[in-house]
C-alpha cells in the first residue's frame, strides 16, 4: 500500500466529483437550498393555515336558540364565530362544510339551568375539517365563559364568594436557558439530518467511483496500472468520505441558514411563535468537534460499505435503487431516538447509526457523557475498519469487478 497512490486516487476522484453536476447538486444545492424549504416549509404552512383559520369567521347554527337567550348573547360577543339564521340546517351541512358546527339546544334549556336541573347541549362537528375543529375550540371557549357566568350567579345567590373556587394561583418558571431550549428543539430534528447526510451524502460519488467506472469502462485501464487494490480502494473510500463529510457540514450550514431565515421572516408579528423562529442556539467548540467526530465515524463506515455494495452492483440504476433503502435503513434508528426517550446503555451504544443519533441528541442537550461518546467513537472506528476490509475484499474479487 502506497500513500502516494492513495493520494493520487483521492485527488482525482475529488476533482471528478467537483466537475460532476449531479454530485454538486447532491452535496451543495440540495442541503443548502432544499434544507430551509424542508425544515421551514411544512411548519410554516401548518402555522399559516392555523393562523388563517383562527382569524377567519366560522358560521355555526344554533337550533332552538330561543330557549338559550343568554348563551346566544354570549355567542354574539365572539368576533370570529357567526350565528347563521338557517334553521333548516342539519348534520349533512356540517358533513359537507356549509356550516362549521350545529348546536342543538334542548327545550327549556335556560329554565332548567335556572332551576339548577341537569341539561345538555348537543354539538355536531366534523373533525376532518379544519374550520369545524377550529369552530369547536372557539365554541368551547365561549361555553367556558358562559359556564363561569352561571356558576358565579349561583354562588352569588348563595352568598358565597367566587374566590372559593380559586383557592390559589400558580406560576411556572422555566429553569432552562434559551440556549438549552434551543438545543432541546434541535435534538428532535438535527440528529436525523446529520445521520442521514453522514450516511448518504457521498452516495453519488460512491456510485461514480465504483459501478460508474464499470459502466464507463474506465476500470480496466485503472486495474492494469501497478497500484495495489488496497491503495485503490482506500483512495476511493477516502474520496467518498471527504464528500460525505462536506455534504454533512453543508447540511448543517443549510440547517443554520434555515433557522436564521426563520428568525428573519417569522421573528415578529403573528408568526413570532413559529417553533424555529426564535431559537437561540450556541454550542461550544468541544460540542461541535465531538459532533463532527461522531458524524465522521458514520461517514467512514458508510463510505466503505456503500463502496463495497456499489462495486457489487451491475448498473448505476441498480446502485441508485439501493440508495433508497439505505436512506430508509438509516432513518429508522434515527426516528426511534427522535421520538422515544432512550437511556443509552452499552448495548444501544454498540448499534451503528443508533449510537450516533443517541450521542448527537445528548450533545445537543449540552450533556457531555464521555463514556457514551467514547464507546460510540470506538465502535464506529471498529465498524469503519471492518467496512474498509470488506470493501477491499469485494474489490479484489474479479467476479464482482467484471459482473455483468
Amino acid at each position, binding site marked *: 500500500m502506497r500513500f502516494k497512490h492513495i493520494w493520487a486516487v483521492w485527488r*482525482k476522484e475529488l476533482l471528478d466529483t467537483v*466537475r460532476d453536476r449531479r454530485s454538486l447538486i447532491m452535496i451543495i444545492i440540495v442541503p443548502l437550498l432544499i434544507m430551509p424549504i424542508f425544515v421551514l416549509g411544512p411548519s410554516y404552512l401548518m402555522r399559516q393555515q392555523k393562523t388563517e383559520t383562527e382569524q377567519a369567521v366560522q358560521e355555526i347554527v344554533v337550533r332552538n336558540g330561543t330557549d338559550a337567550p343568554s348563551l346566544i348573547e354570549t355567542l354574539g360577543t365572539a368576533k370570529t364565530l357567526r350565528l347563521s339564521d338557517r334553521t333548516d340546517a342539519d348534520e349533512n351541512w356540517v358533513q359537507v362544510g356549509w356550516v362549521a358546527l350545529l348546536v342543538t339546544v334542548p327545550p327549556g334549556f335556560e329554565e332548567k339551568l335556572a332551576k339548577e336541573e341537569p341539561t345538555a347541549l348537543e354539538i355536531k362537528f366534523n373533525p376532518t375539517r379544519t374550520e369545524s375543529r377550529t369552530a369547536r375550540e372557539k365554541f368551547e371557549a365561549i361555553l367556558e365563559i358562559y359556564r363561569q357566568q352561571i356558576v358565579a350567579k349561583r354562588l352569588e345567590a348563595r352568598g358565597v364568594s367566587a374566590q372559593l373556587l380559586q383557592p390559589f394561583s400558580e406560576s411556572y418558571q422555566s429553569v432552562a436557558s434559551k440556549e438549552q431550549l434551543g438545543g432541546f428543539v434541535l435534538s428532535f430534528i438535527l440528529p436525523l439530518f446529520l445521520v442521514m447526510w453522514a450516511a448518504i451524502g457521498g452516495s453519488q460519488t460512491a456510485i461514480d467511483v465504483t459501478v460508474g467506472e464499470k459502466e464507463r469502462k474506465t476500470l480496466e*485501464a*485503472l486495474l492494469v496500472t501497478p497500484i495495489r487494490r488496497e491503495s485503490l480502494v482506500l483512495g476511493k473510500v477516502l474520496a467518498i468520505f471527504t464528500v460525505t463529510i462536506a455534504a454533512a457540514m453543508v447540511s448543517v450550514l443549510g440547517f443554520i441558514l434555515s433557522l436564521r431565515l426563520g428568525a428573519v421572516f417569522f421573528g415578529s408579528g403573528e408568526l413570532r411563535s413559529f417553533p424555529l423562529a426564535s431559537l437561540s442556539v450556541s454550542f461550544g467548540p468541544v460540542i461541535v468537534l465531538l459532533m463532527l467526530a461522531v458524524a465522521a465515524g458514520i461517514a467512514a463506515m458508510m463510505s466503505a460499505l456503500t463502496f463495497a455494495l456499489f462495486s457489487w452492483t451491475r448498473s448505476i440504476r441498480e446502485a441508485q435503487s439501493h440508495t433508497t433503502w439505505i436512506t430508509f435503513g438509516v432513518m429508522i434508528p434515527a426516528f426511534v431516538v427522535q421520538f422515544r426517550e432512550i437511556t443509552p446503555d452499552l448495548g444501544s451504544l454498540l448499534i451503528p447509526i443508533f449510537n450516533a443519533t443517541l450521542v448527537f441528541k445528548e450533545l445537543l442537550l449540552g450533556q457531555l457523557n464521555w463514556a457514551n461518546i467514547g464507546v460510540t467513537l470506538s465502535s464506529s472506528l471498529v465498524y469503519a475498519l471492518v467496512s474498509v476490509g470488506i470493501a477491499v475484499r469485494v474489490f479484489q474479487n474479479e467476479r464482482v469487478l467484471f459482473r455483468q
Partner: protein
Amino acid sequence: MIEVRNLRKSFGKFVAVDDLSFEVRAGEIFGLLGPNGAGKTTTLRVISTILKPDAGSITVNGCDALREPERARAQLGVVAESNGLYDRLTALENVRYFARLYDLPEEKMAARLRELSPRLGLEEFAHKRAGQFSRGMKQKVAIAIALLHDPHVLIFDEPTAGLDVMTARQVRQFIKECRRPEKCVIFSTHIMREVEELCDRIAIIHKGKLAAMGTFSELQQQSGQKDLEEIFVELVEGENRAL
C-alpha cells in the same frame, strides 16, 4: 519477454482459455488472432493480472505475474478496446493521473509527453475535457498513457475497433514504430489485414485453444493457403469439424 504456459481460465462452466501456451520475444510484434469470443481479451486480461488464471504460469520480462502482479503490471503498457479515459478530466489531467499511478515524476512525465505528443498529435486537445473527444482522439490519449512509463511490453487489444480509416492507419503506424529490440508488442485483433501488415508472428486462437502459431509464411506452409483469411477460415472450420 512474455512466456505463457498452459494457461487456463474459466468462468463457471465456460472455459474461456484452455491450455494456452506461447511466448513473445523481444523486438517482435506478436499477433493474437481469433473470432469474437475466442478468448483473446481474456488471455490479455490474465497477462495484465486483472484476472487470475485457474492454472498455468505467466512471466512478464522475467517477472512471475502471478506472484508479483504489481511488478509485472509496471512492465506493461495496455491499450484496451475501451480507452479508459475520464470524461470530466482533460487529456492532460488523465495523463497526469495515470503517470502518478505509474510512479512517474512530473518532470519525467512532461519529458515523455513532449516526445509522444507530436507523434500522436495530442497538443491540440491536451487541455480539453475527454468527454468532448472523438473516439480517435481518446484512443490517441490512451496510447500516450500506456507508453508514458516506457514499458517493456505493450499490449494492444483491438486498438483500431470503431476508429475511422485515417485514425486506424495512424494507430497502426504508431504500433509499427513501437517495434524496438528491447521491447515486444502483443496485438490482438480479428482484422486479418492488420495482422498481415504488423505482426512478425501470429497465434490463431479458437474457442480458447491455440489453433496455430508461427510467422505468416510458416502458417502459409502449414495450411497450404496463401491468404491469411483463408488460413484462418480453414483452421477455424477444421476445429469446428473436429469438435
